[in-house]
């Protein structure tokens, strides 16, 4: 058995050491940096300043806007995605026995496989105020052109639209898998009892979908807290601060202004927020079952 132990440790050690370097080291280092005024462009400027970075952050208007925007973006995107995903998933379930429907489904989910940079780029071309095909179509329909990403009133909505376009297929796939796992007899029994569609959704489909949906939401919350690529190629947080999000904010502080002390404090707060939301959602899932991630 001692030999087994050696083999086991040999197999596990590289992964564990690697992950320690990837998680514990950055965490401790970030925590340390967040209490200093370190700036990479001013090497002489050092010094421990306690929690000053944090108190400066929470009183900073731009950082607050970034948090607000991140929350609005996450909540709005996920809600719209859930609604779209539910209807599309039901549609694909209804035609699941038609030959070729899996090909249609694969084409439908293509947006979620795309490089986020690419989806940001192709939408900024489509939504471009003068050259974009979107405004051209609006004009053809006799509508006034829409400013999309170019105005601070509409930029966040446009980013949400891009986000929803890319990620609805993800929740759709999860719901599809959930719906397909419902035994046919349950539907037949419901039909026998004369249940209407709403009752079927409420009493048969919802219970089956609950966990898949919650797990999907956790993934989407984590994704939205990290959202960077789309913003980076479409608006860089603008116009003004209309689409400023937390990752963009921290990125700019760190690699734009080299304010690594202050930027690290922002990063620590982002980590904290993401963890709190995940924990709360996890609680929800564990409420019913103990076996999910």
């Amino acid at each position, binding site marked *: 058995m001692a030999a*087994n132990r050696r*083999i*086991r440790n*040999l*197999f*596990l050690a*590289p*992964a*564990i050491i690697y*992950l320690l*370097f990837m*998680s514990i080291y*950055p965490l401790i*280092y*970030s925590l340390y940096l967040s209490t200093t005024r370190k700036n990479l462009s001013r090497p002489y400027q050092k010094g421990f300043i306690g929690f000053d970075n944090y108190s400066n952050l929470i009183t900073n208007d731009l950082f607050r806007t970034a948090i607000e925007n991140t929350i609005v973006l996450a909540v709005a995107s996920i809600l719209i995605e859930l609604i779209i995903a539910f209807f599309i998933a039901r*549609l694909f379930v*209804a*035609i699941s026995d*038609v030959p070729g*429907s899996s090909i*249609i489904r*694969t*084409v*439908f989910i*293509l947006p979620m*496989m*795309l*490089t*986020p*940079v*690419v989806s940001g*780029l*192709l939408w*900024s*071309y489509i939504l*471009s105020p003068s*050259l974009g095909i979107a405004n*051209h179509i609006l004009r053809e329909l006799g509508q006034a052109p829409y400013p999309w990403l170019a105005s601070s009133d509409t930029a966040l909505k446009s980013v949400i639209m891009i986000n929803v376009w890319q990620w609805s297929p*993800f929740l759709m*796939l999860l719901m599809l898998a959930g719906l397909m*796992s419902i035994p046919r007899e349950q539907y037949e029994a419901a039909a026998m009892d004369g249940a209407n569609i709403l009752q079927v959704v409420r009493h048969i489909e919802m219970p*089956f979908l609950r*966990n*898949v949906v919650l797990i*999907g939401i956790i993934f989407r919350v*984590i994704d939205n*807290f990290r959202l*960077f690529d789309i913003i*980076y*190629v479409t608006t860089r947080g603008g116009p003004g601060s209309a689409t400023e999000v937390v*990752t963009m904010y*921290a*990125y700019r502080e*760190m690699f734009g202004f080299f304010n690594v002390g202050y*930027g690290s404090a922002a*990063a620590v707060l*982002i980590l904290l927020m*993401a963890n709190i939301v995940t924990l709360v959602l996890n609680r929800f899932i564990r409420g019913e079952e103990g076996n*999910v*991630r």
Partner: protein
Amino acid sequence: MYARKRLKKAVLVVVALVLTILNITPLIWTFMSGFKTRLEIFTIPPVWIPKSLNLANYEAIFDKRLHNLENSVAITVGSTAGVLLIAVPAAFALTVFAMKNKKHLEFWILSTRMMPPIAAAIPLYLGIKEIGLYDTRWGVMLIYIGFNLPFAIWMATTFMRQLPGEIFEAALVDGCSWPQVLLRIAVPLSVGGLSTVAIFTALFCWNELLLAVFLTSSNAKTFTVVLTEFVGQTNIVWELMAAGAVIQIVPIVILTFLTQRYIVAGLTMGAVKQ
């Protein structure tokens, strides 16, 4: 009754088709734009189908940006290999060996995935600079491997647990060593699952932007970073952007069609009651 059902289904298929085409219209539009000349890009009203199959945009990108494409390919392949090399033995150990606090270890491994890349950015950037790997493919790979390990280990463990444990015992009785059991039995039997792990790792590496932006500057710059440069401050080169976008996503589209079964399995794993 039967005819009505068929009609209803036919209508639903048409609806699904229309929605699907609408959903990928942005992709079709971009694909078309990649063949446009600068003049056609600025034509109003916009042209859907370019007059000729103009390949100049693609030639321009392959001329100037081949090196970055090579970086992306090398980093994707290297990182995926590295992830499998480290994750598979770890997953195997978590599957076959008993140990105290195994649940806690597994939870810790998965929890390291919660770390947003931006939260680790500065320490990783400084660390990579310190060991002289800034702006090298090795540096990017090192970090990409780390970001993919948690999910890869978790996924591989889930797949290996589905194998019957008696096979391993039988092999041991027959005189196989543990490494042999891993290489000759566990890996071949879970090849489908490990493909899923490889696909998801490769997708992450191919698509990644944030880490690549601050880990590279010129030598090891990946193609995703190059793409962001087509939308500069003043002059937006839409035709090059479109061609670049197509180059970036063609491998993904092919992969998606070839491996759709694995992708669905990987995404829904654990989320759906078996």
